[in-house]
């Protein structure tokens, strides 16, 4: 061992150590002794503060780049704790709230303790915006709120009130209402958790007058900061509102599941529609700025800052022009029906309608209209008033009450009526129970089952005579389809309906309902639902009894003797209960009459307009079922493509081209002289195919359907229109005509002129 060499190097090592440690000590002297008082002051006055710079939400555009949702700058009011004591802070809060109130501004109020007329306090953890919350959620919310604010779990409203009053040092000189305002803001501030020294937003989109007043009084309002932040804007108002959806404040349950790095409790989040479906893209990344502030909490200089990254732009497949045509025409046509104009039979309840347009070769949704719509701008601040919200979401609504927030195009599953007949037709041809040439005799009254009749017989006591498939579709002959379905059987018929995507969710990005395909299984489900009703609501049976009875339903049991014996075994003696159960179980028995009803789109069959449009698209493109979709492309704010959608094939139906042709010919005849949709399409410059449907849904007036496609030879788009209680499907055809006009650019110049005037 060359000890000497090592020794030399180790001595060198010690010297290096000594140098490094003297660096540290020198730096400590500098920081703590020389500059100590400077840093002490910074620390005492919380002179350094993080200001979140909200990222503008990504835009939503139509397929041609027309902006359907963007942002505009707005003023918001933030509050931050400065170096003042409780009593001063409470005063500041109240003064600021009073200024907001006097100027008619809305401010955020999430405080769950309310005062009644006699100033007694009570809890209400139910947020009026989400009325669907369960009791359980509300209890959990209460528990969490209490623990967040250090209130004991058993405390009643009065105890919690007194606790907070003491905690926040609110003295008795305030009125109870004033105390509530203070507690509201104080709890919002403390909900920031470890960021409690960061500003929190208490009001959004305030007027310039309010800004001026706050600025004028800022000396007396330490910690009240007016900030500019982007606010959501929907330049086209109600257009495509149910597609776009809206944004709202984050409820406590959702907040728990979000990344706290990305979301703050006072953020807004997409709640419905595209705003919800593409939230992760639209949100963007908030930036921030460290600022040195003065004693009033106002910025003196910037210490460091990170620019926000705006959210991605979501480009939809929607064509604004077609969407607008669909909505306007629905409104117009419904008005004409309600007023009995344009030769329509008056139906005063024609208040709701929907239309869907799909590109048959890709599944792109070009228009998805649901009328009435709503103005999503109402939600942009995150605090719609109770009145505004109630107007959009009517209380005690019946089936007839229009619900603007409801998307009738994707969530309204209703009987399709005669527009379903192409399913029956193609199923019959494909399964070989009928040939294209076979003519079936319309006898007026069909001699099987409950002896249903053709509509022509019911109305005029006439018959269609001998009809083949093309004719049957053209004249919508019920008897022809009764006969085909009788030969097919319900299982085959239901199978074809499902192949076309009916009765199942389409997979579109926004909220939708599945609907129901009439079938023995669906009927059994109804019976089992009835049994659950007897158990849960009427409380006549228990779960065990229900399970046993459900077995009878599954087995298809209908014999009274067997069912009654079972009831005896289960010890169900109450007469009323026995009757109800017997009725429910026997109701699950499928019969031929139900098959006949199903064949003409009645009975249990209920589908959404979106499903209907996609079924027509699948039929006319030769049997390829695409997933209908609304997203065409997502681009980053600086124009890079983030995501692109491609046509997605869900199923290939392998339909016989020749058979499809027979069906299409029938649909073409519908739109020509003598067809049920000829009123709308006579002399139409483009040849097309369609089918009307007048769906019975007692006790309401018939729902008017029209489904169609164009151009006839090389179909590009499929359309489905429905007007609730519209009376006749032929009226809905006028909406489809406006849609085709817009899509094929057929609007005559002068017509354009008048339309524009109407808009203005």
């Amino acid at each position, binding site marked *: *061992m060359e000890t000497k*060499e*090592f*020794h030399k*190097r*180790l001595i*060198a*090592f*010690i010297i290096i*150590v000594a140098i*490094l*440690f003297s*660096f*540290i*000590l020198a*730096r*400590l*002297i500098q*920081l*703590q*002794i020389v*500059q*100590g*008082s*400077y*840093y*002490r002051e*910074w*620390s*005492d006055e919380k002179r*350094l503060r*993080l200001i979140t710079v909200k990222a503008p939400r990504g835009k939503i555009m139509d397929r041609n780049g027309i902006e359907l949702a963007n942002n505009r700058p707005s003023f918001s009011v933030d509050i931050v704790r400065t170096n003042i004591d409780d009593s001063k802070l409470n005063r500041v809060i109240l003064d600021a709230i009073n200024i907001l109130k006097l100027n008619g501004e809305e401010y955020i109020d999430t405080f769950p303790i309310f005062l009644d007329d006699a100033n007694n306090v009570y809890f209400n953890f139910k947020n009026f915006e989400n009325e669907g919350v369960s009791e359980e959620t509300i209890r959990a919310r209460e528990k969490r709120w209490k623990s967040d604010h250090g209130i004991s779990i058993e405390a009643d409203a009065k105890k919690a009130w007194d606790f907070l009053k003491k905690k926040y040092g609110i003295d008795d000189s305030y009125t109870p209402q004033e105390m509530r305002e203070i507690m509201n803001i104080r709890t919002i501030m403390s909900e920031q958790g*470890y960021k*409690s*020294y960061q500003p929190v937003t208490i009001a959004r989109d305030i007027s310039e007058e309010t800004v001026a007043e706050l600025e004028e009084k800022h000396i007396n309002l330490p910690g009240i900061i007016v900030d500019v932040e982007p606010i959501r804007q929907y330049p086209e108002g109600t257009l495509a509102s149910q597609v776009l959806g809206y944004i709202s404040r984050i409820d406590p349950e959702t907040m728990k599941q979000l990344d706290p790095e990305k979301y703050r409790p006072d953020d807004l989040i997409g709640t419905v529609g595209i705003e919800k479906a593409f939230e992760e893209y639209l949100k963007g990344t908030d930036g*921030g700025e*460290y600022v040195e502030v003065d004693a009033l909490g106002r910025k003196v200089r910037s*210490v*460091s*800052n*990170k620019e926000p990254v705006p959210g991605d732009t979501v480009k939809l497949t929607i064509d604004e022009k077609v969407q607008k045509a669909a909505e306007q025409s629905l409104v117009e046509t419904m008005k004409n029906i309600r007023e009995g104009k344009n030769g329509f039979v008056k139906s005063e309840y024609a208040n709701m309608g929907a239309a869907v347009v799909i590109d048959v070769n890709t599944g792109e949704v070009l228009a998805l209209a649901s009328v009435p719509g709503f103005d999503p701008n109402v939600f942009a601040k995150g605090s719609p008033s109770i009145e505004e919200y109630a107007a959009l979401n009517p209380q005690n609504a019946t089936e007839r009450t229009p619900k603007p927030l409801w998307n009738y195009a994707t969530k309204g599953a209703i009987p399709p009526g005669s527009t379903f007949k192409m399913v029956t037709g193609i199923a019959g041809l494909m399964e070989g129970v009928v040939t294209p040439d076979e003519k079936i005799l319309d006898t007026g009254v069909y001699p099987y089952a409950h002896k249903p009749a053709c509509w022509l017989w019911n109305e005029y006591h006439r018959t269609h005579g001998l009809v083949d498939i093309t004719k049957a579709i053209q004249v919508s002959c019920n008897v022809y389809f009764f006969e085909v379905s009788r030969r097919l059987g319900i299982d085959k018929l239901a199978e074809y309906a499902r192949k076309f995507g009916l009765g199942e969710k389409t997979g579109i990005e926004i909220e939708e309902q599945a609907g129901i395909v009439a079938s023995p299984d669906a009927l059994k489900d109804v019976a089992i639902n009835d049994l659950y009703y007897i158990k849960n609501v009427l409380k006549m049976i228990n779960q065990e009894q229900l399970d046993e009875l459900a077995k009878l339903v599954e087995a298809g049991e209908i014999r009274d003797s067997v069912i009654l014996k079972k009831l005896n075994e289960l010890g169900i003696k109450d007469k009323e209960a026995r009757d109800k159960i017997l009725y429910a179980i026997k109701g699950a028995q499928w019969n031929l009459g139900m098959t006949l009803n199903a064949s003409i789109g009645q009975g249990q069959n209920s589908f959404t307009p979106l499903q209907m449009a996609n079924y027509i698209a699948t039929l006319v493109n030769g049997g390829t079922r695409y997933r209908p979709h609304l997203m065409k492309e997502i681009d980053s704010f600086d124009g890079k493509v983030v995501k692109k959608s491609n046509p997605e094939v869900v199923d290939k139906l392998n339909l016989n081209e020749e058979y499809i042709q027979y069906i299409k010919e029938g649909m073409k005849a519908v739109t020509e002289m003598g067809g049920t949709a000829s009123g709308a399409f006579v002399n139409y410059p483009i040849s097309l195919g369609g089918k009307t449907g007048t769906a019975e849904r007692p006790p309401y007036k018939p729902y008017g359907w029209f489904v169609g496609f164009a151009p006839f030879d090389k179909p590009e788009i499929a359309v489905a229109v429905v007007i609730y209680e519209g009376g006749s499907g032929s009226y809905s055809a006028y909406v489809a005509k406006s849609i085709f006009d817009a899509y094929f650019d057929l609007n005559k110049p002068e017509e354009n002129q008048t339309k524009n005037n109407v808009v203005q």
Partner: protein
Amino acid sequence: MIDKKLIKNIDFFLLLCIYLISAIGIIAISSATHVQETGSYSMVLRQVLWLAIATIAFIVIISIDYNFLGSYSTYIYILNIALLLLVMVIGHESKGAQSWIPLGPFNLQPSEFAKVAIIITLSKFLSEKEGPLNNLKDIFMVLLHVGAPFILIFVQPDLGTALVFVAITIGMLFVFGIDFRWILTGGITAAVTMPFVWFFALKEHQKNRILTFLNPSLDPLGAGYHAIQSKIAVGSGMLTGRGLYNGTQTQLNFLPESHTDFIFSVVGEEFGFIGASIVVVLYLIVVYRIIRIAMNAKDEFGMYICIGVVSMFLFQIFENIGMTIGLMPITGITLPFMSYGGSSLLANMMAVGLVVSVGMRRQKINF
């Protein structure tokens, strides 16, 4: 079991300093975890428990002749690499790095133990060679030896810990003696291989972390923020500090990670310059005593162990304290014996055990 003479040779002053540092650390952790506010001592108790476990590990290590451990060098090396590979597979991720193996109520961080393992194995390797290091094969062997664990930790990504390996290697090679030319060559090789690692081995978030390490201004609200808040905390402590549990930066959560990476800021804020400099001096004594043991070691293997350990401590102390006072960039390196964390405390005590073991057995012939 252990010879009385050996016990007499234990450097008790070194141990005293280490336990003092640990005690100050535990007090600072109690402040950083807000015990007086929450009444919850769980993290403090965990740290005390870990100190007890670490003491047992220390006793076990000093009972074994380090040369006995040296004879198992190959196995230690293989086990070490295996553990690091395991963490890649079953490890769980925390704060962006996948470096933990869940083990019942605790999480184990193999990279902490890897440091000790590499010190033993590299010492063994160097003690069997003649310095200075000047042939390609030996240099290649050293690079391979340290390179494997370095890369495995680098991709977790835990750049801070990976750099500790570099510090250990540089310290040991410095004492071993190395031709300047080879340092240059090493630098060039690293520069050439880095792009490959960068483009082919690293994930996007790993790259971001490394970029932020190299240039904290890329993350002005993260690392930049931590740097400023820590400086305010330490500076505002002034001469005597704000007093235990009274540091506003600590108590109001302005300081991030105050119980782990920024524990020194807590000391600076609440105990002032007096407290902070006492800690610094205690560390200086620890470092000096270890170098002294190295000087008196009976063989090269023992000396290299001491140098490896002291290089590790020195780098961590300087980097960690340095980042809290704005001398060094922010990185996730813990302060030995003070930062909250069982794995690092255990590994560090094991390292001290090795050093003490070398010091105990410094007489060449006793019989």
